[in-house]
């Protein structure tokens, strides 16, 4: 439900930034939430949020943080 909502509302909606953290809260290992939220936060003018976005993206490469990782998922294909 939340995932579908995230894709429906579009990146520019303020709700977008609420939905992905909710998905992440439900599943902290969710790769998709890491990447989508992380990438979005990169464009934030708030440096703390930008840093959080980078940290989320970094985690998407870390098998201790997400499963599968952004790299391993591709090799599995």
């Amino acid at each position: 439900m939340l995932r579908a909502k995230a894709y429906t509302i579009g990146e520019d909606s303020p709700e977008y930034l609420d939905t992905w953290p909710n998905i992440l809260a439900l599943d902290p290992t969710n790769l998709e939430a890491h990447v989508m939220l992380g990438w979005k936060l990169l464009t934030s003018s708030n440096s703390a949020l930008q840093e959080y976005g980078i940290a989320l993206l970094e985690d998407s490469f870390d098998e201790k943080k997400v499963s599968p990782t952004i790299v391993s998922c591709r090799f599995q294909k």
Partner: protein
Amino acid sequence: MIRKCQKRRSTLSHFQKKKKKKTFAQNFEFPQTMAIAATIGRYRSQRKEYVKGKYFTELALDLSKRYYRNGDPCLQLQLASMFDYFPISTGQADSAVNALNFYAEDLLSREWSINEEYLSANTPGAASDPFVHCMLSIFSLSFYYRADTTATASRNYQLASRAWPSLANYKAPHVTEYEHRSIPNTCESRKIKLGVISGVISEGHSVSEDFGGVLQRLDRNYFDVTYIHLFETGSPDIANFTQRHPTDKRLVWTKQPTDQGNGAWILRWGMEVAAMELDMILFLDLTMSTFARRMGMMRLAPVQLNTHGHPITSGHDASVINYFVSWAEAELPIEQSQAHYTEELRLIPHGKLHQYYEPRTLPGDRSRMNGQPFGHLTRDDFDLPADVSLYLCMQKPFKLHPEFDPLVCGVLHKDPHGYAVLHKGKLSVNLVSCRINIHFFLICV
């Protein structure tokens, strides 16, 4: 594969258009993975976080080999110019330089090019200035005391020339004319047209403080002076000393909002300088500002000089930057010191000061820089004991590399009650303190 990659912008929005039945992981494509790794790497490098910056940039480079036979050249340029800003040991500093040189030599050994338009359109963060995105600052090289500075700086210049040939190949028409003269001798008939170009010739900057006295005193019967402040960071206001002679020309140039997607504005400025038909250009700081560094890649005057605004060789070929003006008191004998420069080294003789020193204090114990009084301050204000020796080193902490540690440690060893007082910094001061503490316990105690 390259065509497929080029069609995609570095946005993740295309995920939304994929068929719903596929999982996110299955939908993920390598170009985006590469873009994310590259973005993290560049972000961390910008924040001077070397380990993470290098890790993710190398990861992105590895991923890019699916699309470029030898990997993305911009990523390799980053790795070829990536210094460890706060090395914990000399060994770590050496490793960083070795890694950087490995990538530089690899790039120089084969053919490649940089497509600024493509880079700007497809790489997050590159559009503002592709040069800055790919070539990280060479500034830190000056702190690598054990490195082969000349070779490293020279490779950096060669890489920049290869990536931006329009700059490296530009020669002002009057320079060509000058080279074809049988007896070049402009001094007899007119003044020497001197250009002084700097990225930091702003009021109060150490470069302005260092050179202002000398430049003001150049005999205007011989020199026609034009100051050009290339404002990149810091203050846009050109230093007050440039106003002393009404005949001097003062220009402040900066990148305009429309200057996007390529570095064409540097060439545009170069052509403006070329139109001035200067006889000589003195670059005060070729290794600080990227604008100045790029201007110095062009042949804009028959004689071009670098000097000690940032006291390190530019690495530029001696046919482009002909001379480095330094100070004999600060150099080894010429036959040794020349090895540290790609330019021909010219020295202000022994026994002469390199600057006209103007005290930074005013009568009444006030700062000349901001007018603030300081005569009332005591050691108590800094929580320092009254009856000990203080050893001040007011360099910014990021300039204090591991070679500094045994020096300060040795001083404190000989004066156990002494205090080393260092400049407070944001991040690096903790590292310096930590390193010194380690040294102190390992060596001094």
